[in-house]
């Protein structure tokens, strides 16, 4: 069973191949992780899948539908959501409004009704607000409902991004370094949250440097190096793969 398929994907920046003829398959359900040293192309891969970059070659297929080159906002409709390595919070809005933007596709976004604030809009907003509260509580941000995002701590903002992505009711959520910049306690909380998301039937694709987190939650790991697939498999496969150990611990160069 395949949910998302990346076929022979390539993308270069200024002559340097960031992603080089890469193929991979995501099955529905389990938590997938993408790891690799800095500059291996992980974030580029995310940006390609979520439509922010246009690929130089290859295809991206979501459940047999070719989504290569789709408008980014249409991907949300198809059930693809993501968070960002560098926070992309709407700092001009409160926490709950951030989440409500995530429900945009299910809201009445007609212009005229909005201008006149029809009962439909008011009712819709009330429902969305309740739903947003539920999501914020789900990511353990119940204390921050109407908070100014400007004044929220970094760890909370990371979870807010996750809640916002969940608000689109995705089938796949791509998390780009959710633990970066967090202290160990916060990292453990994220760990739990990722599992909770997965238990709700959402397929998680994770890019993360924190190996304890990755090894703890992942069912399938892809290891990238230099834009290519170095290895893939279960946690055990990866741990015992000499190429991976070499890439990470840097003995490869010495032995060759």
């Amino acid at each position, binding site marked *: 069973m395949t949910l998302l398929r990346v076929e022979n994907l390539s993308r270069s920046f200024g002559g340097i191949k960031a992603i080089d003829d890469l193929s991979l398959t995501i099955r529905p359900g389990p938590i997938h992780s993408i790891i690799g040293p800095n500059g291996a192309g992980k974030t580029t891969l995310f940006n390609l899948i*979520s439509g*922010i970059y246009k690929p130089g070659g290859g295809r991206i297929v979501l459940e047999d539908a070719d989504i290569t080159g789709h*408008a*980014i*906002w249409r*991907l*949300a*409709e198809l059930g693809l*959501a*993501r968070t*960002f390595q560098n926070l*992309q*919070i*709407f*700092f*001009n*809005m409160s926490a709950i*409004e951030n989440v*409500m*933007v*995530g429900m*945009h*596709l299910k*809201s*009445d*976004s*007609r*212009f005229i*009704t*909005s*201008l*006149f*604030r029809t*009962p439909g*809009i*008011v*009712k*819709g*907003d009330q429902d*969305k607000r309740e739903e947003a509260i539920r999501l914020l509580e789900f990511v353990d941000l119940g204390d921050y409902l109407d908070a*100014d995002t*400007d*004044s929220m701590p970094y760890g909370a903002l990371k979870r807010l*991004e996750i809640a*916002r*992505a969940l*608000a*689109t009711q995705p089938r796949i959520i791509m998390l780009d370094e959710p633990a970066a910049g967090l202290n160990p306690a916060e990292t453990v909380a994220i760990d739990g949250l990722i599992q909770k998301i997965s238990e709700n039937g959402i397929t998680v694709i994770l890019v993360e440097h924190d190996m304890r987190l990755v090894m703890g939650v992942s069912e399938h790991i892809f290891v990238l190096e230099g834009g290519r697939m170095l290895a893939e498999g279960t946690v055990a496969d990866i741990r015992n793969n000499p190429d991976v150990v070499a890439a990470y611990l840097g003995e490869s160069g010495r032995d060759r």
Partner: protein
Amino acid sequence: MSPLNMPGRNGLLALIATIMVLPLMLPNAFYFDIVILIGLNSIVCIGLNLLIGYAGQISLGHAGFFGIGAYFSAILTSTYGWPATAAMVVGAVVVGLLSFIIARPIMKLQGHYLAMGTLGLGVIITIVLTQESDLTGGPDGMPVPGFSIFGWEPYGETVWYWIIAAVLVATVWLSLNLIASPVGRALRAVHGSEIAAETLGVNVVKYKVLVFVLSAIIASLAGSLFAHYTGFITPDTSGFIHSIQLVTMVVLGGMASTFGAVAGAAILTILPQLLTVFHDYEHLVFGAVLIGTMIFMRRGLVPTLADLFNGRQK
């Protein structure tokens, strides 16, 4: 659901109260005139604020739309004898179409390129209005007949005061509604982070185009009213300087604050009148005030002062 159960209700009520009380404090028609201009500028600025403050897109050419509205009203009523309301609507429709056509390519631009693009658009509009002098009277402008609706011709500053006040209140009400709606949230999201908004399913281009067209139409309508009220217009109404004044009103009052737009319009309409006292030093003082406010109150007057009052709970 009561129609008054809306975001910004207290502010709106206070605005209405101010409008009711203000006439008692205005000694003569000259002061009414200034307040009417404040009202008209406020209306344009509320629209522009949707674009700049909420959607985060700058425009240095909005006076162009104001000017088109003004000239359509002027030409269609005086030269072709149209009813004022029809002229106003046609002006707004033309501006709507023009801004819609131009919005897609122009809203693709970022930062300074967007500033240049909108500036260029405004300048071209001014040049057309200046050069087509057979229609527009050229750089020296043209007179505009009074407004009339269903045979009624409002005349005199006090009557206009109430007309503009009503339009202003309606604009504030609609603007507050819009901002609090899903459309408004989408706009604000575009400002917060285009890329994040897009990944959440917001069609960023569509919303940018929408708000650009909306703010242009508002400017056009205000331009029409201005033309009929003031009775004489020149291409300066569409000029670069006027565009800059409008943007400055929005930024000075406080971006992303509907009442900030009103406050900014009020201050920058009154300031030059006060500065005529300084005669020769007028520009010097005005420039210094602009620089100073922007450095020390970067977020604009109303949000900064509001924070001072609130003690900014961070």
